[in-house]
C-alpha cells in the first residue's frame, strides 16, 4: 500500500491552473523529494494532500484511505510558513499541538522530553516560544511534526534558517524516520539535500510534472556520456574522446557515441599516466533542475 497516491489533481485560482493534472505516489519507507521553482505549485499540492484546500478535480488516498479526521492523526506536517504560540511555553505548545493529533497529555510530555533531549533543547522546555531563536523555533516545530509518531511526514522547506549543525541533526532524524518505515515527503529548493536524502523525486513546474521517478535513474537519463579523470602525467590524445573540458583538479572527457567508459579507462592505463580518480560523469540534480526548469521558465 503506497503512503500517498495522487491521481490527476487540478487546482485553479482565478482561472489559472496552479496544479495541473498531477499524479504521483509515495511509498512507505522512502524519502520522496517534491521539487520545483518558486510558484511551481508545491505548497498547493501539499495543502491539497493535507485537505487544507479542496482540489477542483482529481482524487487521492493517504495511507490507503481518503483523508479523514482520524487519518489526519497519522500525518505530520511542517509547513514552509512556520508558527507557534509565541506566548506559550515550549512544552505547553508541544503538548497542545500533540493533543490535536490524538496524544494524551502524559504520553505527549514524555515523548516531548525525549525529543527535546535528542535535539539538545531540553534546557529550553519552560521557555516561552518568543524567547527562542528562529532556528530553535524550527527545531520545536519539527518536534511538533513528529511527536505523535506519524506514518507520513511532509516537510516543506525544512532547512530554511537552520545552521549547518542543525541541518545535519535534522537530516539524521529524517533518515531515522525512513529506517523506521515512515514515508517522508521533502519539499525544498536545496538540490544537494534532495540528492543526498531522497530515493525518488517529483519535479514540477507551472503545476505540471516535468520529472518523476527514481533519482538514480533520472540522473543516469541526463548523463552526458563523459568521464571524470584526475591524473598525474602528460595526457595524450585518446581514441574515442571527442572533447576535453578542464576543471579545477580534474578533466572531463566527452566520449563519442561508440566508445564506452571501460574502453577509455583501458586506453588511459595503457598510456602509463597515474590515475587518481576515474568515474562516469553524472550531472548534479541542480544541473538537471536548471536544464529542465530553464527550458520551461517564462
Amino acid at each position, binding site marked *: 500500500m503506497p503512503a500517498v497516491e495522487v491521481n490527476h489533481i487540478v487546482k485553479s485560482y482565478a482561472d489559472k491552473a496552479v496544479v495541473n493534472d498531477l499524479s504521483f505516489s509515495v511509498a512507505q519507507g522512502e524519502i520522496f523529494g517534491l521539487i520545483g521553482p518558486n510558484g511551481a505549485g508545491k505548497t498547493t499540492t501539499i495543502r491539497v494532500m493535507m485537505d487544507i484546500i479542496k482540489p477542483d478535480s482529481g482524487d487521492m488516498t493517504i495511507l490507503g484511505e481518503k483523508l479523514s479526521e482520524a487519518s489526519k492523526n497519522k500525518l505530520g506536517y511542517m509547513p514552509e510558513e512556520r508558527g507557534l504560540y509565541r506566548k506559550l511555553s515550549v512544552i505547553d505548545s508541544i503538548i*497542545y499541538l500533540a493533543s*490535536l493529533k490524538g496524544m494524551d497529555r502524559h504520553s505527549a510530555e514524555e515523548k516531548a522530553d525525549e525529543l527535546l533531549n535528542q535535539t539538545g533543547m531540553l534546557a529550553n522546555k519552560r521557555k516561552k516560544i518568543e524567547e527562542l531563536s528562529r532556528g530553535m523555533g524550527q527545531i520545536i516545530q519539527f518536534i511538533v511534526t513528529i511527536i505523535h509518531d506519524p506514518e507520513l511526514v511532509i516537510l516543506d522547506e525544512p532547512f530554511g534558517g537552520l545552521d549547518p549543525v542543525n541541518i545535519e541533526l535534522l537530516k539524521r532524524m529524517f533518515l531515522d524516520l525512513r529506517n523506521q518505515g515512515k514515508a517522508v515527503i521533502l519539499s525544498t529548493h536545496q538540490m544537494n539535500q534532495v540528492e543526498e536524502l531522497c530515493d525518488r523525486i517529483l519535479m514540477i513546474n507551472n503545476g505540471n510534472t516535468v520529472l518523476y521517478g527514481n533519482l538514480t535513474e533520472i540522473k543516469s537519463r541526463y548523463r552526458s556520456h563523459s568521464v571524470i579523470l584526475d591524473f598525474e602525467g602528460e595526457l595524450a590524445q585518446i581514441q574515442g574522446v571527442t572533447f576535453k573540458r578542464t576543471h579545477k583538479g580534474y578533466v572531463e572527457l566527452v566520449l563519442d557515441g561508440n566508445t564506452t567508459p571501460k574502453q577509455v579507462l583501458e586506453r588511459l592505463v595503457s598510456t602509463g599516466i597515474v590515475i587518481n580518480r576515474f568515474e562516469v560523469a553524472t550531472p548534479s540534480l541542480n544541473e538537471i533542475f536548471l536544464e529542465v526548469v530553464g527550458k520551461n521558465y517564462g
Partner: protein
Amino acid sequence: MDKALLIFRHEFLHTIKRTGFIILTLALPVLALLGIGVFHIISGVARPPVEVTRIGYVDEVVGFDQFTTQGNITFVRFDTREAATQALLKKNITEYFVIPPDFISTGIIKRYIIQKEVTPPPATTIAIKNYLSSNLLVGKVPASTIDRIEAPLNLVTITLTSTGAVAPQQGGFANFIIPGVFSLLLMFALIFSSIYVLQSLSEEKENRLMEILLSSVSTRQLLTGKVLGLGAAGLAQIIIWVISFPLLLKLASSSIGGFISTIQLPANFLALGVVYFILGYSVFAVLSASVAAISPTVQEAQGYSSIYTLFAIAPFWCFSLLLLFPNNPVWIVFSIFPFTAPVLVMLRLGLTGVPVWQLAVSITALVLCIIGGLLLASKLLRTYILMYGKRPNLGEIIRNLRSG
C-alpha cells in the same frame, strides 16, 4: 477527546488566565464590596455635629420676625445694613439679606456675601423662600396650608398591569440601576469577547499557525472550539456578575439601606441577561471570525471590528432619548436588529416593560443571524485563512462566496 473540545478547553483556559479578563471580571464585585466597606468605615467614624448656619437679615418692611429657624439655618435679625455688614466681616454670620420696603410689590431680596459664587446654594434659597412665605401667610391661612404651599407636591406613580392590578415591578430608578449597570458590563463583555475571537484567529493566521492547526483539525472544529471556548469564558464572566448582583444588593441593602434597599431586579432579568449574552456574543463572534479570515494582520482586523462593535455601544449614545421615550418605534426596531438588540433590550428592561412578542422577534432575529453568520464564517475561513499578506476586495469575496 473530540478535537473541537480540545480547542474549546485550550481557548477557555488561555482566556480566563488573561490579566485583562481577570480585572474586568472582578472589577464589579470588588468595587461594590469596596464601596460597602468604605461606607461602613465612614459611617463608623463619629459624624461631625451638624453645623448651624447663621444668616443675617435686615427687615425694612417689618413683620418678618417669625419662623427664623429653617432646618439647619438660623436667621439672625439686624436693625441696620451696617450692623449686618460688620457681623459678616467679623464672620459672625455667613451672609445676610435685606427685605427692602418695596418687597411686597417687587419681590426683590438683596443678598450680601463675601465669597463669589455662581449661583446661590439651593438650601439657602429654599430656606429664605420658606421663611418669607411663612411670615407672609401666618395668621391668614392654617399652618397646614402653609406647609402645602412650601411643599405642594409629593408625586407617587403607581404602575398597573394589563388586568388593572398593581404591578410587582414599579419601575423608576430603583428598577433601572441594575439593568443599567448590567447593560454597560454586557457591552464590555460583548466587545471584549468578540475581540478575543478576532485576536485569536488573526494571531494564528499572522503567526502562520493556522496551517499547522488545519493539518490536524477541520475549519468547522476550529471555529466551533474557538467560538465556544471564548464564549464560555465570557459567559463565566457574566455568570459571576449575575450571581454577585443579588448577593451584593442584599449586603448593601441590609447594611446601607435607604435608596439601595428599594433597588429591584426586573422579572426574568437574570435569565434574559444570560440568553442575550449568549446570542449577542455568538453574533459578534461569528462576525469576528469572518473579519479575521479576510484580514492580513491583527491590526487591520481590529480596525474592521471597531465598525460593528460600535453597534454594541450605540444604545448608550442615545441614552437620554431612550430614558424619555423607551417605547418609541425606533427603539423597538433596534431591539430586533441583532447587533444592537442585546444591550438595548437589557436597558429597556430596566426602563419599561418589553412585551413578550418583541423579545420573541428579537431572539429569533439573533438566532437567524447566528446561523447565517456561521455559514459565512466557515466559507470565508476555508477560502481566505491561508492567504497571507493579501486583502481580498469585496467583489472577490462575493464571487468566491457565490462559487462556494
